């Protein structure tokens, strides 16, 4: 221990010096003893001064861990070095765990689900941004807040109180009541909880749509089936004249036809959903497409109006159409979509009403097919839902006119496959306007040498 030796030597030297000085004034044992004591005192004062410097350094070390130790004799320096080494080690360790915690928290931040860490008294210890968004929390301010003070939904409070960790509870988000969250509690550690919230709005919507679809389709099939079964029973049990039999069979055939149309439409829809969209291989002349629509529309109008005044139908004239060029896509699908719109207009417009059909080239190279009728119109609240399957503004009327409730759904699907958009504009008593806008890349100018004949069916 060189430090200890130096220290002792220094003490002895000071004592000796004290004794020597004392001997100058008074020789003898008392003088020497006084000198030694004086030397010891001096040493104590000197050492205390060093201690003060050392303490001062320690204080500075708190503020800045890199402060170099002061110049001190061996033992003090040793102490200083040991302390600063220990401190550096601790700082490194803290920084490392802080980094690790930071990485962990950053990872939890990017999770797509809301995460809240709860302590033993169910107070919020930490939460990520998604949880803040889900429950309207403030990540800084709401720390140490009881979770039930901010997530007050009775369903959640009961769930937490029951400590039910096997099931999730469904809550609405703070920001909007239409956003649904599935909240789960996971216990860990000693009585601590992890709260995980997942946005299930889309899932729930899909689930509702599926449920509605199954309910609708059962209803749609059951209605004609009930009528059919009724007639069968009548035919089986009641003695009927030949005329009555004929009439009943006719009605049965009508119901069977309705069911077949329904199944056909459903198959068309499922085919449209499953098959890949048509490309740019097949081109159909617009004039041919529209002339077929015109022919079918006139026939249908004559059928529906019967004895009454016919619809006043107006179609674009053949000359204008011969300039319209060709359109890419599946001709049968396009015909069924566009004719569907005309069909609706004819079925909903009373006899004598006007129906205008236009084909308008657009400045950007695209084109618009539009149908305007003078029918009863559609209330604005129904318009966004018209293309939903089985959505009907007036179900009794739609079924009476032979609709399956799938027409506009099919139109929407076909148009989506052809990158076209459907615009609907209507109000009660204002008639209805349906427009289909095709993009420029689906259209091409007609080739001059091969004029498409207006009569060729697509």
């Amino acid at each position: 221990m060189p430090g200890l030796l130096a220290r002792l030597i220094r003490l002895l030297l000071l004592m000796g010096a004290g004794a020597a000085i004392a001997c100058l004034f008074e020789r003898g044992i008392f003088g020497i003893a006084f000198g030694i004591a004086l030397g010891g005192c001096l040493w104590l004062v000197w050492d205390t001064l060093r201690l003060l410097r050392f303490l001062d350094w320690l204080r500075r070390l708190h503020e800045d861990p890199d402060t170099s130790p002061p110049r001190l004799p061996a033992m003090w320096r040793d102490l200083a070095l040991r302390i600063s080494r220990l401190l550096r080690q601790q700082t490194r360790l803290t920084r490392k765990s802080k980094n690790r915690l930071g990485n962990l928290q950053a990872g939890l931040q990017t999770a797509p689900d809301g995460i809240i860490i709860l302590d033993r008294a169910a107070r919020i210890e930490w939460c990520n941004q998604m949880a803040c968004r889900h429950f309207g929390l403030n990540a800084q301010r709401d720390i140490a807040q009881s979770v039930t003070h901010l997530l007050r939904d009775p369903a959640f409070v009961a769930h937490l109180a029951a400590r039910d960790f096997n099931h999730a509870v469904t809550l609405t988000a703070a920001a909007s009541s239409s956003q649904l969250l599935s909240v789960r509690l996971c216990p860990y550690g000693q009585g601590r909880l992890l709260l995980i919230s997942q946005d299930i709005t889309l899932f729930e919507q899909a689930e509702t749509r599926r449920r509605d679809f199954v309910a609708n389709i059962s209803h749609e099939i059951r209605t004609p089936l009930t009528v059919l079964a009724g007639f069968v029973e009548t035919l089986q049990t009641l003695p009927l004249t030949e005329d009555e039999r004929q009439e009943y069979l006719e009605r049965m055939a009508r119901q069977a036809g309705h069911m077949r149309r329904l199944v056909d439409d459903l198959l068309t829809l499922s085919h449209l959903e499953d098959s890949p969209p048509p490309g740019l291989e097949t081109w159909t002349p617009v004039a041919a497409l529209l002339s077929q629509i015109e022919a079918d529309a006139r026939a249908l109008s004559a059928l529906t109006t019967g004895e009454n005044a016919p619809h006043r139908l107006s179609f674009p004239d053949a000359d204008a159409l011969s300039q319209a060029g060709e359109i890419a896509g599946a001709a049968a699908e396009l015909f069924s979509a566009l004719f569907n719109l005309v069909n609706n207009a004819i079925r909903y417009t009373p006899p004598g009403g006007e129906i205008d059909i236009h084909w308008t080239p657009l400045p950007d190279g695209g084109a618009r097919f539009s149908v305007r009728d003078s029918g009863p119109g559609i209330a604005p609240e129904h318009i966004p839902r018209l293309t939903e399957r089985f959505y009907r503004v007036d179900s009794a009327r739609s079924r009476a006119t032979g609709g399956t409730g799938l027409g506009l759904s099919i139109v929407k699907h076909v148009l989506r496959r052809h990158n076209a958009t459907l615009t609907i504009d209507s109000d009660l008593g204002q008639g209805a306007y349906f427009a289909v806008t095709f993009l420029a890349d689906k259209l091409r100018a007609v080739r001059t040498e091969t004029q498409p004949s207006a009569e060729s069916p697509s």
Partner: protein
Amino acid sequence: MSEKHLSSQFDSDLTAVSTKLMEMGGLIETQIQNAIQALTQFSVPLAEEVIQTEDRVDMMEVAIDHALTSIIARRQPAARDLRLLLSISKITTNLERAGDEANKIAKRVKSIVEGGEARMMPISDLRLASSMAITLIRRALDAFARLDLEAAVSILKEDDLIDQEFKGFTRKLITYMMEDPRTISDSLNLLFLAKAIERIGDHAKNIAEFIIYIVKGTDVRHSSLTHIESVIH
């Protein structure tokens, strides 16, 4: 919620009663939401649910008052603690009244639907005011949990919007009734519904005033917004 006390039992008593209040608040929020939903969808089952839950709200109110009495008797609190306890008592009353309004809405919805007059009424005009009322109650309870003065003041300001909405709606109903006296009974029903929604907003405002009282110690009831803002800053 509050600073540490020498007695940790006192702390946990205060936390427990606050938690009870927030639980009641959560129930009232759901009541109001369900009542409004019953109104917009004319749903009798939902209205029934609101009417049946009313008993639970009443029981909670009694339980909170009981807990408050026992804390005050045993601890004899002063200053901020006393203000907190007094305010909890008054907030409970306000929440219970807001619950009553939800109950009134539910009962009226039920009688409208059972009377067969539903669908004819322009309920959508009430949509804005009702969503504002729901938001205000939620924000008032959030502000209480956080003892957040800024949020409390913004609630005071926004309640004025609901009041304006109510006044506008009343004027509209008056013109309907003048144009066609047959709409009078529908319009009166709507007026009562609108009044209930407007009262819910008022209760949220009262809760916000008690938050300012807890934190600042100044009773700001019946004073102007400018005065309240000068108290806070």
